[in-house]
């Protein structure tokens, strides 16, 4: 087991280094007027050489790379060519919005997913179950940006009750959070339903009833507690896909989070911002993935055995 953890951490480090090298190289060869990492056009060849020395561009690539990593870790993420804002400031401005969106979606996914999943399990094969399961199937079938447009049309334009862009107030959070939550919600409902059904067939439930406990306590305290295992493993897995979704949803609703910043930067050919941001997000994803994998291996005894024997 420890070997697995060490191996995954090692891979994580390796991939992070590779990602940073890729970004470093592409920043060096990118066209554009970046004064941060690449030299600007200068008046004379002598001045060129001077600047080269000043900026350290005549040093071996390895040294430049080391400096690059050093600067990143010190928090100096460079400056945008176009707006001349510090990248780190761009990150700071976008991060809270992205986090808020993700949290709102999480609240929806678990706040709705768990009760609905339990209800579907309790009323198995009757109409509440069929309704909930049917909705889950639909939720999985529609790509989220199509759903987003659909909702924009209904709520934003036809009914005019919800705002569809920007982040002026709390209502702006509703539609993006809903769109983001739909697919993970559908999956969570199915997982919870199946886990609860599993538990309901266990012996201890019968004992609890024989003790005279109320149905509510049996379900919502005991059964639910025992059902959460698979849900937690699922959460770890869902975390990974979340990032990709968040990007698109942010852009559609013009929600000023990191996703919008990234896509805007790419579209405007603001290479420094685009690539440094992308690198940051990549690093976050890699770290999260690794820990999710490790957590998953711990939580699921079947996986643990397989992994240990690998």
């Amino acid at each position, binding site marked *: 087991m420890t070997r697995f953890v060490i191996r995954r951490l090692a891979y994580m480090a390796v991939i992070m280094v590779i990602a940073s090298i890729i970004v470093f190289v592409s920043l060096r060869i990118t066209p554009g007027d970046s004064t941060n990492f690449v030299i600007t056009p200068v008046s004379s060849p002598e001045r060129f050489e001077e600047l080269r020395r000043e900026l350290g561009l005549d040093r071996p690539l390895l040294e430049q790379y080391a400096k690059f990593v050093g600067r990143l870790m010190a928090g100096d993420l460079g400056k945008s060519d176009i707006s001349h804002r510090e990248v780190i400031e761009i990150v700071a401005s976008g991060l809270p919005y992205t986090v808020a969106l993700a949290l709102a979606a999480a609240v929806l996914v678990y706040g709705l997913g768990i009760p609905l999943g339990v209800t579907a399990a309790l009323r198995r094969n009757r109409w509440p179950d069929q309704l909930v399961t049917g909705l889950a199937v639909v939720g999985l079938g529609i790509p989220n940006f199509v759903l987003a447009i659909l909702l924009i049309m209904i709520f934003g334009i036809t009914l005019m009750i919800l705002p569809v862009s920007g982040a002026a107030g709390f209502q702006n959070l509703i539609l993006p959070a809903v769109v983001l939550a739909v697919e993970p919600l559908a999956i969570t409902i199915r997982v919870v339903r199946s886990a609860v059904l599993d538990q309901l067939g266990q*012996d*201890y439930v019968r*004992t609890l009833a*024989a003790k005279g*406990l109320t149905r509510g306590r049996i379900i919502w305290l005991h059964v639910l507690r025992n059902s959460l295992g698979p849900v937690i493993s699922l959460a770890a897995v869902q975390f990974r896909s979340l990032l990709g979704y968040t990007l698109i949803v942010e852009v559609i609703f013009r929600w000023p989070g990191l996703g919008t910043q990234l896509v805007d930067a790419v579209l405007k050919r603001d290479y420094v911002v685009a690539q440094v941001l992308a690198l940051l997000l990549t690093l976050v994803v890699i770290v999260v993935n690794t820990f999710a994998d490790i957590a998953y291996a711990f939580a699921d005894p079947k996986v643990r055995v397989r992994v240990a024997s690998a």
Partner: protein
Amino acid sequence: MTTLGAVDAALVSDSPPTPLLEVRGLTTVVDGDGWSAAAVDDVSFSIGRGQIIGVVGESGSGKSLTALSILGLVAPPIAVTGGSILFEGRELVGLREREMRRIRGAEISMIFQEPTTSMDAAFTIGDQLVETIRAHRPVDRRGAEALATQMLDRVGIASAARRLRAYPHEFSGGMRQRVMIAMALLLHPKLLLADEPTTALDVTTQAQILELIGELRTDLGLSVLLISHDLGVVLDIADRVVVMYAGRVVEETPSASVAGSPSHPYTQGLLASKLSLRHRDRPVTVIDGQVPSLRHRPPACRFEPRCPNRLPKCGESEPELADVPGAERLLRCYNPSPWIEP
């Protein structure tokens, strides 16, 4: 607690006991896909205060379902469709769920076969014991823990107070069953339904658990419905034995009579089989054939296909459960033969 038990014991020996539990004509039906059958078919018996009644039968006889029916723990597609269950004169069949809940765990308790899976593995036994108490009485947590510790002690769990913090999987099988018993008796119920409590345990532990149940009966004035497929277990501590086959009661008699002179061919078969295990040099005696499934029961006497005593009329009509004159016994058989010790 002990004085109360002594008083009840006195009651038992003096007057004809008013039955604590009276089951009359209980019928529990299982609904399948396009068919239905009575897994418990017109079953009657009664339990007096401080009595241990043993119910014996192979799996499929309906004995577990009888106990579950008493507590109303059956859910569709299984349902109690007929008969009456009087507990202290109160009708339990059709009782509102809320009332039933008050009885479960407090007046009538049940313990099950598998102590391992019968407890919630995610909570400590202390939590589960306290939960039981507080579901029925307004006791604060500390008071409940004290009661729990006392009961754990009573059933033979060492260092009871410390063990409250332990999880079910930290106990051995026998200890777990003791915990289950403690949990069932926390609120001093008058009746304990024990569904195969020793089946999952090894022989030594079996004896200990049975001894414990016997003690508790004496000390607490507890009545017990002991269900087992093992005649030996039942004969060990039960006062009377009810023999069930394919949903029907086929014999009812004091356990001394069963051990000495069983009447029904099925009971005789069970006893012979049990006794034959003692002789290692001879093949084990078995009853030929199998218990009929719910859907395919013989139309007349249900034991007829396997019965060594069968007569033509056994295949034509089912015998009634009748009093045997001159003996304290109920028997459902056209052709019993006297018992010959093998």
